[in-house]
């Protein structure tokens, strides 16, 4: 009885509950509104420089002249006409091929190299030496693309080091920059030279988290250092490898224009013209055809998103590693 009475009284006291939840909500918002204020500038910047351009891709479906409004009464919608034009462009297949080849070769060489280097650095005896080496390997990352390509000309240009030495021994001078066949090797090898150390950091970080007791246990089991690399270190970085693999596949057709533009010459244009550089040239130079260029760019981004989704789903299926 008493308990019942108490329960009833409890119920009564709880009557003004509705009002409280409202107050609660107000308090929650008031307590947390400073966070909204803190995130606001970033939201604004992303809106201006990322979302407005996404809205701007609408012109890919229009007959668009520079200066036109994206949406107005006079907008002429042309559907997929710009895309169809691109598919029948004589440049289409060469562009696809060039873009794909530079990416796939770059991936085949550039993906395993940092993994191997990180495993080797980690397996070094002298930890101090390994640190020094790592510092050296990271260095080129900070060289700008302009300087990097400048350096390439200083080594492989007509009067660069390689030719100077060749001439010294009576060879013919020969500008690698004007040779189609030299473009891809120069592009890919210089990229790797610049970034293999930097890309290795992420694996080195993962390796430094390996429990030393695992190594000690393996030593007691009689594993050689090489076996320990294969059976302790490598499995430890596999999750990271999967994630990086997904990301790389997602970027397989996403090679940028910055470096390729710097390396392009009339001589190597047949292989150095990529989708992204072509977009730049059609959209911003000569007589700009912005709608067409935007359509090509959109086509490229969509390929990337699709590749990323495929890579992620595949990885999800065969392992527990995925981006989302």
């Amino acid at each position: 009885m008493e308990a019942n009475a108490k329960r009833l009284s409890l119920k009564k006291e709880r009557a003004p509950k509705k009002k409280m939840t409202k107050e609660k909500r107000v308090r929650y918002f008031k307590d947390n509104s400073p966070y909204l204020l803190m995130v606001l500038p970033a939201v604004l910047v992303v809106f201006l420089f990322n979302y407005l351009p996404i809205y701007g891709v609408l012109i890919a479906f229009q007959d668009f002249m520079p200066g036109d409004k994206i949406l107005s009464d006079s907008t002429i919608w042309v559907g997929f006409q710009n895309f169809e034009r691109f598919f029948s462009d004589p440049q289409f297949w060469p562009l696809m091929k060039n873009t794909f080849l530079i990416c796939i070769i770059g991936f085949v060489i550039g993906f395993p190299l940092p993994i191997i280097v990180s495993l080797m650095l980690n397996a070094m005896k002298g930890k101090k030496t390994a640190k020094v080496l790592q510092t050296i390997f990271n260095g080129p990352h900070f060289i700008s693309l302009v300087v990097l390509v400048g350096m390439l000309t200083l080594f492989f240009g007509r009067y660069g080091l390689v030719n100077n030495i060749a001439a010294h021994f009576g060879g013919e001078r020969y500008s690698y920059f004007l040779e189609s066949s030299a473009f891809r090797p120069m592009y890919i090898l210089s990229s790797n030279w610049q970034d293999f150390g930097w890309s290795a950091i992420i694996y080195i970080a993962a390796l430094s988290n390996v429990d030393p007791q695992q190594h000690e246990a393996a030593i007691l089991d009689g594993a050689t250092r090489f076996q320990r690399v294969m059976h302790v270190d490598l499995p430890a970085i596999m999750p990271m490898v999967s994630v990086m693999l997904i990301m790389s596949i997602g970027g397989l057709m996403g090679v940028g224009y910055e470096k390729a533009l710097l390396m392009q010459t009339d001589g190597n244009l047949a292989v150095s013209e990529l989708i992204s550089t072509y977009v730049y040239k059609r959209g911003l130079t000569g007589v700009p055809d912005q709608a067409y260029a935007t359509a090509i760019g959109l086509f490229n981004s969509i390929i990337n998103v699709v590749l990323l989704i495929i890579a992620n789903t595949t990885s999800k299926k065969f392992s527990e590693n995925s981006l989302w």
Partner: protein
Amino acid sequence: MSEVVMKGLKKVYDNKVTAVHDVNLEIKDKEFIVLVGPSGCGKSTTLRMVAGLEEISDGELYIDGKLVNDVAPKDRDIAMVFQNYALYPHKTVYDNLAFALKLRKESKEVIDKKVREVAEILDITQYLKRKPKALSGGQRQRVAIGRAMVRDPKVFLMDEPLSNLDAKLRNQMRAEIIKLRSRINTTFMYVTHDQTEAMTLGDRIVIMKDGYVNQIGTPQEVFNKPVNLFVAGFIGMPVMNFFDNCKLLLEDGKYYAEIRGVKFLLGDFQQKALKQINAKSCDIVAGIRPQHVTVGEGELSAKIEVSEMMGSEYNIHARTDKDEVVMLIPTVDLTTDVSMGKTINFTTRPHLIQLFDRETGNNIIWYDAESAANNAPVCKRYDF
């Protein structure tokens, strides 16, 4: 005056997981209350709701008679000591202690006086200029307590404050907390998973499991009058021995407990209590604390598997046909050979046997249905 009253306090996460069910608890002024239970039992969540760090999903929380559900933590007049101390690493000990006062816009002189006073009490005056990094674990713990003390809170909240310390330091700090308590004389709410800490510190102990309060009571009550199997098993070291599939027998107006075929005539108090609640014969789980076992006599027998000499007592693990039995036998009383592999007889004093209903797991004598229905379970009171 600073009571804390919880009425139907509830925590639901994302409308799905209920971490705390309907806690009803009245903490008296200047009482030291300990919330204890295994991890994930909701004890920390309850404390954090009192602190204001966790939104209260339902129910009411009163501090000092004032409803504080929607009052910001700083205005609740509480202070909290965290498990990992949560000291500001970039501030000196002095500034750590002074921060709350500074935010209250106290004058420099008042702050200085208060900080030095507290530092004196906690014996950390010589470290005031240091940063937390330069302190040992015990010293950091003192600073964390000091930071709470300078605010003169109505309620002192402590969330596992000793569990980051090593065993020796923990015992030492436990003693210091007891000393501190007599000195600052305020209401304490203390969360721990360690039943020893709970037993030694608390005026009353709240034992929680899966978000429910299982028993509220003094250390003596929860040890001697556990209301159910969980409380009986959680409180006391080593853990109480449970004998499943036993019987409570009512024969000729007398109550017996039958354990493994051996009949024990229960004690006077038990007879009276069982009579009052009109208990019938039934299946029970019988509980016997390791401390209450005597060896070398009686009709129960077991084979010794492990026998540990602990100095003042022997800790014996033995096996009957069905059960593993732990016995704690004072060395001075021991006349039997308790080496490994020996089979010994053992018994207990019948009035110390705990009787649990086999179906519900509730203590037949001490479970109080009325208080349990209120979600404020205490042991049943008998007035004889």
